[in-house]
Structures are given as C-alpha cells and as structure tokens.
C-alpha cells in the first residue's frame, strides 16, 4: 500500500430515503478495509444514520419475523465500519453536526460517534488527502 491516506466524507441524506447513503457506506467500507483513516461529517438528515434508538421490526408483507427479516439498521452499519477501521489499523471518526442533531432530537447516537460543528468539517478536510461530498439531491 502506498502511504496511508486520510479521507473525509461529507454526507447529507437521512436513512431509508436514498441509495446515496448506501453508496457512501460502500465507499467508506473500502477505505477502512485499506487501513485508511476516514472522517465522516454527517450533516442534516445524515445525523440520523447512527441514531441509537433505531429498531428492527417484523415484516408481515414479507412473511418474516424480526429475527428472520434481519432488517438493516444504519446504526449497525456505522458500528460495523468503526469496528472494521480499528481491525484494519485505521480509524473512523464520525462527527454528527450538533445543530442538525438538536433539530431532529436524535442526540442518542451509538458509541464512537461524536458531536461537532461545521468547523470540524473544515479541520477534517484540511487534514485529509481528499474530501468527497455526497449531498442530497
């Protein structure tokens, strides 16, 4: 591997609304598997991605109980990526925009997620090899 990279992702979409969130997670997954240090600045609806109170549910239309359904919860995706980063020698620093959190009442995030401000995005981007914005459309 060439030198260790640091990448910043600024994401904006809420969970369950857009394939863009899944795409962002897939890119982050590749980066952390390569041992890169990855920063995520979650802005607007994206602060709901690591919300700790997300709950799986059964699905009568699919004919499956909750356990069989294994409903994807983005908070589990965030947790898996934080764990994968540590396993692969990097780190995932997930920063939730604090004001966006307050507006939405989603302060209870999973472990490993911290509260921040737009100034954090600026600092993270300055310290990164590159920054990718995946905004809402």
């Amino acid at each position: 591997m060439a030198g260790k990279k640091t990448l910043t992702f600024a994401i904006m979409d809420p969970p369950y609304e857009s394939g863009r969130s899944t795409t962002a997670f897939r890119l982050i997954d590749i980066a952390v598997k390569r041992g890169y240090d990855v920063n995520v600045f979650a802005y607007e609806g994206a602060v709901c991605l690591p919300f700790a109170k997300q709950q799986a549910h059964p699905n009568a239309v699919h004919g499956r109980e909750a356990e069989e359904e294994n409903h994807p919860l983005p908070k589990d995706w965030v947790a898996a990526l934080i764990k994968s980063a540590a396993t692969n020698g990097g780190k995932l620093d997930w920063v939730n925009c604090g004001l966006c959190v307050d507006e939405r009442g989603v302060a209870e995030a999973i472990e490993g997620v911290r509260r921040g401000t737009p100034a954090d995005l600026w600092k993270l981007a300055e310290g990164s090899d590159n920054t990718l914005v995946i905004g809402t459309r």
Partner: protein
Amino acid sequence: MKVLQIVESAYRGTLEEQDDTIIWLTQAMKGAGGDLDVLLRGNAVSYALKDQDASGLSFGDWKQTEPPRIDEQVNGLLGKGVKVYYVDEDASERGIDKSDLVKGVQAIPRGQVAELLGAYDHAWHW
C-alpha cells in the same frame, strides 16, 4: 374506491428497506382489502425485470441476509390480482425488452396513460 399507484421514484433506499416502499405499501393495502393497481414509469420500469439480484451487501462484518427482491414483489402483486402496467416507451428507451420482464405485466403506450387514469377514482403518483 379504485386507485392507480404510479411508481416513478425507483431504487430509493431499497437496500435499507429490503423492498420498494411503494410496492410494499400497495401489497399491504391490498391485504387490507384495498382495490389498487400499479403503473411503473420512468426508472421504475426496471422493477419488473426478471432475476434481479441485489444480494451481497456488507459493511465490515455486517452482512445483509435478506436483500430486496423486487421482481418477486411484483410477482406477488400479480398473484394477488393487482394489475401491473408499465410505460412501454420508458422500457424500450432503457433497452428493456418485454421478454426481460416478469410474466403478467402489461405494457401501455405513453399516449394511452391518460385514458388509463380515467378508469380509476384516484391516481397516486409516487
């Protein structure tokens, strides 16, 4: 009351939801006694493609065990007596041939959509 569900916004969160939410909603309302049909238009015509495979999503050690199976959802609607139409030109513009689609979906030319709407009390455009 008879409703035509027009589905245009496609593949929006389907991996997270394990389905298309409007197709799901239609199935659920049909199960509750609703009288609904579906018109796929725009990118949503792809929902009728056979043999879609959205499996394999993983992040770290998290793996999706139940991916969306939208073609099966469409088949499920047909099996419950829901008519599923698609805009013919929207399919052909995307290189989709009728033989690529699940059996039972019905093509409707773009110029006849207005006439189709007239057969319903409501048209709900998603």
